[in-house]
């Protein structure tokens, strides 16, 4: 008699197999824990995604056989992201890192369908019982850069290559400008938007045009080492982004703002293993080591190094905040008075420029 698959036999069969598997499940507790990563760019970008992948490798190194990581790179923000994150969730990963702002809504939607899977979303603001949010205070690093730039720039003109005018980028430009103004009050920060996170050619061209216009410090909020490489070639200085880019600009790189996600990722994997994982929103900076500064380059004078260290140590000790008042906007209105500082909420919504920024 041929075997006929009916709904009834299927149900019976699956009940039988699942009851068979049940004791097995417990035996399999030693199986490696699945950890998934969704990346917005290629791991070879040497910037944002590269830094997340370095952290993933730190997780592998720390836990060895106890974890099994899976990553998907070049995930477009939008419907594609939801598909990829769902795929990661349904293929047995217990913890999933969604590593860009644009993955927020897809992550929240998938999280609803997989309540037993934990999700970590970078740089967003929406949480759920199984979705935590983590972000780094990169603007603290920008303030350190500003102090160093103030002691390095001769022309008082800074070229700043921006990606998109979102709060994250705006607060970085403002933090840099304010810190630099403490040394050189009349500094001019020229911002050029390349409308991309990643286009080495265009980023390099933007650096060239800014240097042609007198800038002797190049800052970037884009992901490739191209601007720094141009700075090296033209004999001016700049700051690395996300990774230490010293190899591309041995003389030009003053320091770099390093994204250091590894320790946090290890903590969170451990928390899932221990069953202590809870949702939260964290925004960590220099103090917790999520933002680090690369070793100073050869062009940093002792004076500049001292100024940079003072800012870094002040931020870590809590005696200095990059957005301490008084701060005026471009119209000359006092945004925050002396003795006060901008709140996190104000920072996350920042859409105005401080004096001295030329957009």
């Amino acid at each position, binding site marked *: 008699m041929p075997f006929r698959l009916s709904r009834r036999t299927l149900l019976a069969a699956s009940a039988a197999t699942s009851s068979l598997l049940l004791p097995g499940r417990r035996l399999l507790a030693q199986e490696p824990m699945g950890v998934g990563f969704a990346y917005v760019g290629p791991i070879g970008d*040497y910037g944002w995604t590269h830094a997340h992948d370095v952290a993933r490798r730190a997780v592998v190194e720390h836990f060895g056989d106890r974890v099994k990581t899976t990553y998907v790179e070049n995930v477009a923000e939008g419907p594609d992201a939801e598909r990829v994150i769902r795929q990661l969730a349904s293929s047995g990963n217990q913890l999933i890192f969604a590593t860009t702002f644009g993955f927020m809504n897809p992550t929240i939607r998938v999280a609803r369908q997989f309540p037993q899977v934990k999700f970590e979303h970078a740089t967003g603001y929406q949480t759920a019982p199984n979705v935590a949010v983590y972000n780094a205070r990169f603007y603290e690093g920008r303030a350190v850069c500003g102090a160093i730039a103030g002691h390095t720039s001769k022309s008082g003109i800074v070229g700043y290559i921006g990606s998109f005018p979102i709060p994250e980028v705006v607060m970085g430009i403002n933090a840099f400008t304010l810190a630099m103004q403490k040394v050189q009050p009349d500094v001019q920060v020229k911002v050029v938007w390349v409308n991309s996170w990643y286009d080495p050619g265009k980023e390099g061209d933007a650096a060239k045009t800014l240097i042609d*216009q007198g800038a002797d410090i190049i800052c970037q909020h884009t992901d490739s*080492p191209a601007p720094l490489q141009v700075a090296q070639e033209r004999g001016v200085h700049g700051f690395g982004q996300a990774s230490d880019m010293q190899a591309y600009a041995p003389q030009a790189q003053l320091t770099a703002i390093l994204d250091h996600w590894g320790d946090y990722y290890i903590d969170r994997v451990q928390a899932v293993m221990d069953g202590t994982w809870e949702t939260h929103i964290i925004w960590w900076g220099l103090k917790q080591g999520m933002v680090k500064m690369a070793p100073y380059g050869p062009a940093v004078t002792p004076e500049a190094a001292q100024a940079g260290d003072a800012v870094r140590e002040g931020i870590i000790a809590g005696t200095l905040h990059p957005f301490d008042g008084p701060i005026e906007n471009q119209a000359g209105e006092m945004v925050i008075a002396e003795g006060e500082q901008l709140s996190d909420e104000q920072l996350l919504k920042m859409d105005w420029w401080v004096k001295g920024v030329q957009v």
Partner: protein
Amino acid sequence: MSFDSTTLVLVTVISAATPLLFAALGELVAERSGVLNLGVEGMMLAGAVTAFAVTVTTGSATLGILTAALAGALMALMFGALTLSLTSNQVATGLALTIFGIGLSALVGSGFVGIPVERLPRLRIPGLSDLPVIGPLLFGHDVLVYLSVAATAGVAWFLKRTRGGMILRAVGESDVSAHSIGYDVIKVRYLAVLFGGVMAGLGGAFLSLSYTPMWVEEMTAGRGWIALALVVFASWRPWRVLLGAYLFGGVTILQLYAQGTGGFGVPAQVMSMLPYLATIVVLAVIAGGPWKGRLDAPACLGQPFRPAT
């Protein structure tokens, strides 16, 4: 803008235009023979990663450039085998070639991320290179920049003045007629496609050795697609490709420059739209108006040819 900074901006424009010029010239020849190869981006990436890897490994930029041309040609050969010998759909195959090139170049290049390379040396002619304005503008570039301009002249001469060029155009305009008077349509198209691959490979080499001397994944950032648009923009004429590439580079650099000086009061997003807007306008002008017919695409563009036996 002062005299000096104008020169500097123009030098930047030339380097921004060169990769586009290489890739578009190659594609132009392929399209004039009737083959639409949408894999330019993939071929450029193959060239970029090969040029970088070979230069870093052997220390010879010359070898890097030559192997980049070869890598582009190999990608093109693959495309030719599929579309010309197996008559697969050119659009789909070209798209596949681009996606394949992105993945392959990332794989090959994974060990080369984060390594710097010496920039291609600029040719210096004592006396001439030191002249103000003209010196940096005309005599201060690397060999690939001059090669791209020479190639434009070469392609223009070949298409218009030589027998081979006429055969190539005939194949592109009417493959059946060319075949019936005894020309090997498939062979001509293979050669044209291979030339396209070589040029895209050289464009890629310029990216990874001169424009931004490094290897990072997907460093072409869409330049292969712009090259494709440039061919249409130029209505399949070599010197207009050169003009288009320099115009495109010029508008891109100018908008960056304008932003740095405070802009013209126009939002940055509008400025970055300009080059693309210009392309659309030209396309619209070509499609209608009194030029229609004279500026049309090669008649057999994109159509597979299977010789009747």
